[in-house]
């Protein structure tokens, strides 16, 4: 249903699988590359969360990393404070952000999209305060360390496989969703809520569900983050990270399923070779301006006039014909 201008195989997950296979072969046994690949995977999940909420449903969220933080703290508190299983933590890391996102959207979506964005921003600040004031429960300013590694992924190599398996799974879910009546209704609601109502869509309910799903994806990313880094603190997954992730999704192409992953990979590599962490903001800002000027639909969302392996990818474009034809009377 969606037009993939690049990687136009039958299923985006297949193209992703091929790229991940190449990445796996290249990084095999290199701890440095593996660590980066895992982080790209985790950020890809957060960017996919943006792709679903902003790209598909038009909800601009500044709380992606906040939902990830909720997931990460949920599993950290359960495993560190209560010595419970990380898999119980996974359940909490999915459920809590889902519920938070659903309720937030349900309360505020009756208004226009802008108040929701502001509310997500406020949520980010609120959660940060709660974490810092949480005392021993959340680790306060120090955070929680000693989060156990996962028994199914004890090594970096295994973690790499787990992370990318989760990314692939999420891509499969997103593609299924977007190729259904529900997905088409989400797209209609993004473009014109009134049109969606006339199609019989309960717009606030549908968009809240979509936002909840995007919250769940972010929660899983937070779960992976916590068990990979084995530490989570108030400065780990902040609103700054939400904005970075949003930028990743926009650079890659929010409306294309694989776009956010592509953007995450590119920006993570750029950050890797940046001279200093302080100049990040400058680079990100200029990348954003550059993207908006050159390819506002993102790298995968734009139709590039490049020679491709498959001919005929370029569809002929004709000028918009929105003028009504002459009336006959």
């Amino acid at each position: 249903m969606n037009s993939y201008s690049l990687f136009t195989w039958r299923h985006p997950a297949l193209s992703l699988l091929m790229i991940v296979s190449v990445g796996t072969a290249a990084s095999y046994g290199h701890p440095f590359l593996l660590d980066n690949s895992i982080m790209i995977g985790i950020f890809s999940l957060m960017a996919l969360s943006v792709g679903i909420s902003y790209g598909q449903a038009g909800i601009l969220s500044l709380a992606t990393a906040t939902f990830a933080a909720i997931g990460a703290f949920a599993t950290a508190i359960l495993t560190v404070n209560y010595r419970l299983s990380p898999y119980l933590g996974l359940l909490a890391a999915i459920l809590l952000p889902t519920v938070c996102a659903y309720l937030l959207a349900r309360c505020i979506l009756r208004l226009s999209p802008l108040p929701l964005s502001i509310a997500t921003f406020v949520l980010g600040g609120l959660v940060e305060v709660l974490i810092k004031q949480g005392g021993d429960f959340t680790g306060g300013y120090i955070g929680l360390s000693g989060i156990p590694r996962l028994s199914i992924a004890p090594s970096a190599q295994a973690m790499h496989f787990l992370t990318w398996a989760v990314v692939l799974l999420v891509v499969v879910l997103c593609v299924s969703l977007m190729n259904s009546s529900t997905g088409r209704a989400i797209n209609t609601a993004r473009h014109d809520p009134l049109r969606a109502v006339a199609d019989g869509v309960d717009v606030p309910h549908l968009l809240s569900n979509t936002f909840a799903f995007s919250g769940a994806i972010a929660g899983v990313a937070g779960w992976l983050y916590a068990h990979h880094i084995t530490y989570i603190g108030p400065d780990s997954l902040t609103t700054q990270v939400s904005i970075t992730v949003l930028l990743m999704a926009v650079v890659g192409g929010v409306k294309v399923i694989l776009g956010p992953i592509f953007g995450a990979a590119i920006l993570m590599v750029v950050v890797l070779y940046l001279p200093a962490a302080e100049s990040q903001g400058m680079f990100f800002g200029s990348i954003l301006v550059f993207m908006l000027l050159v390819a506002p639909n993102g790298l995968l969302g734009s139709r590039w006039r490049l020679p491709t392996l498959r001919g005929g990818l370029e569809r002929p474009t004709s000028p918009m014909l929105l003028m009504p034809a002459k009336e006959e009377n």
Partner: protein
Amino acid sequence: MGIEVSNVTVRFGGITALSEVSVSLSPGQIVAVIGANGSGKSTLFNSITGLVSVASGSIRIDDDEVIRIPPHRRIAGGLARTFQTPRFDPRITVEKAVLCGFYPVARSGFVRSLLHTPGSAREERTIRRECDGILALFKLDKLRSVPMGELPMGQVRLVEVARSVANKPKYLLLDEPAAGLTRVEQELLSAEIRNLVARGVGVLLVEHNFNLVQQLSEHVVVLDRGSILFTGAPAELAGNRAFVDAYLGTSGH
């Protein structure tokens, strides 16, 4: 049975858009609503579908009061409409636009669509097959992969009608479906409307094209500045001197 609009008044701030309007539509009937711009035709549609709130009066669909029922549930209950100014995403293809109309008949919700359960996959295949049928019916099958923004307005309207019939409505509200259509497309559209009516669909039609109104409908409602000016058969209307002078002007003779 049918849609029963009784004494409906709609106000926007100080402006009374509809005042004490009553219209009834039975299954298998075509009722045409005509009137000048601003006479309240679209407001009547919006109040039936629930897009504007009604100040007083009652709207019953199949003997159920729907004033307090949200629009999406009215649509799911067997109502469908098109817009006077077609609302569509210019980037989506004709096929996708028509597929969007199937939303009310799709039974798999968010989670089942997400998990791509066998049931939801089967449903998607059924919907696509039925969509092919509708596209063929409206002779749009050759345009299926053309973006909506590249179509001439006449065909956009046909797509809108195709989208609205996708959920097999019991009542269909068409807001100027024939504006901008070529004669051939108009004939195709009126044949399709007749087909729907023969299957028991009630059609409420806003139309400026008086020839089409005369061809199609047995019953006409004329609105003028929010009130009903005339109801009756189109034949009587053509003979109604006051109406002809007021609405059709001299060129209507």
